[in-house]
């Protein structure tokens, strides 16, 4: 008995994704694989037969693989579904991805963890754009092995020339991309030819059956054992005497006594022990989850990375990456996102779209926007450095996701190509960019321009806003008329503060009535936010502490005229608030909320530590 169990425990794991256009026979193929691998459980099978009886037809294999109700109603699968089967040799995890046009996102998801991808082609239709697209995405996500299953061979009389023509077409396409040659297998998913057993109807085909290939293709071929990459996931301090660093080894091997290097502080130390629940180990390797203790007490925290000193990871804050956009809201150039890479989270700013990738044509095109299911090459700057490898060398340390700071959704999947501008060595030589400042201060430059009648309380509000921004970790500076200055000077000063990455809060109670358009132009529309504090003349006069109204009345008794010159309403304000109805804390809260909505301020809870 034990030998039987032991044998099963030694099974290897192969993950593969499947893609095909609607009706190419993907569900049929998966259903058959599951069935033939004898993993179809009896009652699922009887449910299948019950449905088939109702439909009055032969068993519909696709019913085995359908998922959620809404999808069933539409008669189409729209999300990645994971399925499992095992043979005596291997255990398989299938990421079954829908082939419909708009679901690049699902295909990328399925391919991200796959060792192998099966692309289905209907023999009758030949190589269509969709099949190329499926192969392209699988390859883009670094799937090491591609299998092209030419299906429905029974419908073309098992004709070898049909198969060869498809192989030629597809090879041509694959060569263009510069990726490894796929394995081509002619099959009939419906009748089972070359699915498990070699088909008698296609004696001209000498290669392996699909299942045989899945069972024998080497797994873990892209597992890198050379360079240790161990991102610290959790610092374990159960008591005073133990300090361990827990994490999953992404690549490489670590041995007791090995010298390691710690990113980012670049210190070296040696591995004292490899601790596991099952006892200490002499060596551990990818993808094991272990806990390491080190010879020296260094300041190491989550997100740091332990690496082989001879093969350091790339360290950079400016990177170039291919990104698959996955959200309905398009990418914002100059927008900031939370970037998650290994166990590290940092803010990232999208500086530019270098080019877009046209999946249909497998070509590089110009473009300044990235919408749902589009792919592009971005230049990104991160607030903290990333410790990475190029995606093609290491899928684990080369991948990241982008998270929208407002909606918390995962909006993009990224694959790092390289450090931009040669990495950290040349960092000193580069001037600090606006983007870097924005990331550092965790705020976008902003000029908050407060207008209203004299006595409407701009100064009190400005002080309170300045304080509120300061308390939440922002950098703000208030500009008012304590030193009498012209409107234009104020705007100039605000613009300078903005350039330095700071927020300017400007008190504007000039009773003359010049246009604010000039100030806005000076500051720049991107940073400008104008709030008008509304108050009636009576209220403003009653609350005026500057003596302005007294002065005017005493002088000329021409309050009418004063009123005429004051900014009583502002048609160009981004926000108008009535100061007679709200107290200062309420006014501040309204202003901050408006700034958040406009994306000037990050939401408090989500700021990375």
């Amino acid at each position: 008995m034990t030998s039987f169990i032991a044998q099963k425990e030694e099974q290897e794991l192969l993950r593969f994704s499947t893609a095909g256009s609607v009706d190419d026979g993907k569900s049929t193929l998966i259903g058959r694989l599951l069935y033939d691998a004898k993993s179809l459980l009896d009652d699922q099978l009887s449910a299948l037969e019950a449905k088939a009886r109702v439909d009055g037809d032969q068993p519909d294999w696709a019913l085995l693989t359908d998922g959620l109700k809404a999808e069933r109603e539409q008669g189409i699968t729209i999300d990645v579904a994971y399925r499992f089967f095992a043979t005596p040799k291997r255990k398989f995890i299938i990421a079954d991805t829908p082939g419909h046009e708009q679901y690049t996102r699902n295909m990328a998801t399925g391919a991200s963890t796959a060792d192998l991808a099966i692309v289905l082609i209907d023999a009758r239709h030949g190589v269509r754009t969709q099949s190329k697209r499926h192969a392209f995405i699988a390859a883009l996500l670094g799937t090491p092995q591609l299998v092209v299953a030419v299906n429905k061979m029974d419908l073309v009389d098992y004709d070898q020339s049909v198969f060869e023509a498809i192989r030629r077409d597809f090879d041509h396409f694959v060569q263009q991309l510069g990726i490894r040659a796929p394995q081509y297998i002619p099959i009939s998913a419906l009748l089972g030819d070359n699915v498990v057993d070699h088909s008698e109807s296609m004696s001209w085909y000498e290669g392996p059956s699909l299942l045989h290939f899945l069972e024998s293709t080497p797994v873990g071929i892209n597992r890198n054992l050379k360079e240790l990459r161990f991102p610290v996931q959790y610092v374990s301090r159960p008591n005073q005497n133990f300090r361990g660093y827990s994490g999953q080894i992404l690549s490489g091997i670590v041995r007791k006594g090995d010298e390691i290097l710690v990113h980012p502080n670049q210190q070296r130390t040696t591995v004292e022990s490899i601790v596991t629940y099952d006892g200490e180990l002499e060596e551990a390797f990818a993808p094991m989850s272990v806990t390491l203790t080190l010879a020296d007490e260094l300041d190491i925290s989550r997100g740091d990375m332990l690496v082989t000193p001879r093969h350091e990871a790339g360290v950079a804050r400016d990177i170039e990456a291919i990104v698959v956009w996955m959200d309905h809201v398009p990418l914002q150039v100059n927008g900031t996102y939370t970037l998650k890479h290994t166990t590290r989270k940092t803010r990232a700013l999208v500086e530019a779209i270098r080019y877009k990738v046209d999946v249909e044509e497998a070509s590089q095109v110009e473009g300044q926007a990235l919408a749902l299911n589009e792919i592009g090459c971005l230049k990104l700057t991160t607030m903290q450095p990333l410790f990475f490898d190029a995606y093609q060398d290491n899928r684990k340390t080369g991948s990241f996701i982008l998270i929208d700071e407002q909606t918390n959704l995962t909006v993009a999947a990224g694959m790092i190509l390289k450090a931009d501008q040669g990495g950290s060595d040349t960092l000193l030589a580069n001037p600090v960019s606006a983007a870097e400042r924005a990331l550092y201060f965790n705020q976008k430059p902003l000029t908050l321009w407060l207008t209203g009648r004299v006595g409407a309380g701009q100064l009190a509000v400005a002080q309170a806003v300045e304080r509120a921004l300061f308390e939440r970790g922002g950098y703000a500076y208030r500009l008012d008329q304590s030193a009498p200055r012209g409107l234009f000077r104020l705007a100039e000063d605000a613009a300078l503060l903005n350039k330095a990455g700071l927020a300017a809060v400007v008190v504007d109670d000039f009773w003359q009535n010049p246009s604010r358009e000039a100030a806005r132009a000076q500051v720049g529309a991107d940073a400008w936010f104008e709030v008008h504090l509304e108050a009636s003349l009576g209220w403003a006069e009653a609350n005026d502490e500057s003596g302005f109204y007294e002065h005017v009345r005493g002088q000329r008794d021409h309050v009418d005229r004063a009123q005429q010159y004051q900014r009583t309403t502002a048609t160009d304000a981004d926000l108008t608030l009535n100061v007679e109805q709200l107290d200062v804390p309420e006014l501040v809260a309204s202003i901050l909320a408006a700034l958040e909505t406009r994306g000037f301020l990050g939401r408090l809870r989500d700021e990375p530590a």
Partner: protein
Amino acid sequence: MLETIAPAQEQAPPFRLLTAKNQAPSRTLPDRYRLSHLRQLEAESIHIIREVVSEFEKPVMLYSVGKDSSVLVRLAQKAFFPGRVPFPLLHIDTGYKYQEMYSFRDQFTKENDLDLRVYTNQPAVKDGTNPYDLGTAACCGQLKTKALLDGLAAGGYDAAFGGARRDEEKSRAKERIYSFRDRFGQWDPKNQRPELWSLFNGHIREGESIRVFPLSNWTEIDIWQYIELENIPIVPLYFAQEREVIDAGGTLIPVDNFPFRDRLRGPIKTVKTRFRSLGCSPCTGAIRSEATTVGEIIKEMFQVRTSERANRVIDHASDDAMERKKREGYF
């Protein structure tokens, strides 16, 4: 007409995929650096558990006393060794569990130094809620779903580990590992975040939470093999034994301690039975079996006759029963 105005197509520059390697690796993996599928699944699950503890403020592990819970606990112990499991276990108790489950639960959590919390929908229990008078769905709604949501809310938990697996049921095949729930604990199949590589997005707002399924990629056989490999203790009900059962139309319900004996029609027999999954006594049937060891259970698994959940009465209502319950907040 349109073709005539369209500009002549420009020849795109040859494009090479920079994210993919064009060469086959020169050597395959040496044998000593191969990891069996169980160890690989184990490493991935540990990674998930540590990630949640690192990124969430107040995680909890839902503990059902079943075999998957036992495995989940072992993985948590491995994740934090030599430290203690740094979060509590929450058992949603319907009051209808088998006596063996209660004694196992108390002993297991005590021996393993686990912080066990038990939550019950007390008002519903006082009202005598049961599946015979209310129907299975309504009873589950009160004693499981409502109790679970209330229990999570009462503890202020922002992440809850569960033992669900993708191979259990069709609608679970698409479940994420981090399953996002709104403020009402509800699951929206249309609003789940894509999960790529092993990069999980745990960003939530105040009041929202996630359910986490570290066993997503395990199959029932994997669970049994792991129990055998690791020698993990499980409730004795999983092993075949002569039991007095009521044969209620094919479903075998043990009579011992059964609170609704008078409600069932059918002959009482003595049969060698075991449980493939454990639930409430009124709604979980046993199967005929000779398997008295984990090894024998695994062997039986290879000649499976019924899928795991089929001996639970609760799923028979309709094809979409599970999906509906999930939307409402059940696991």
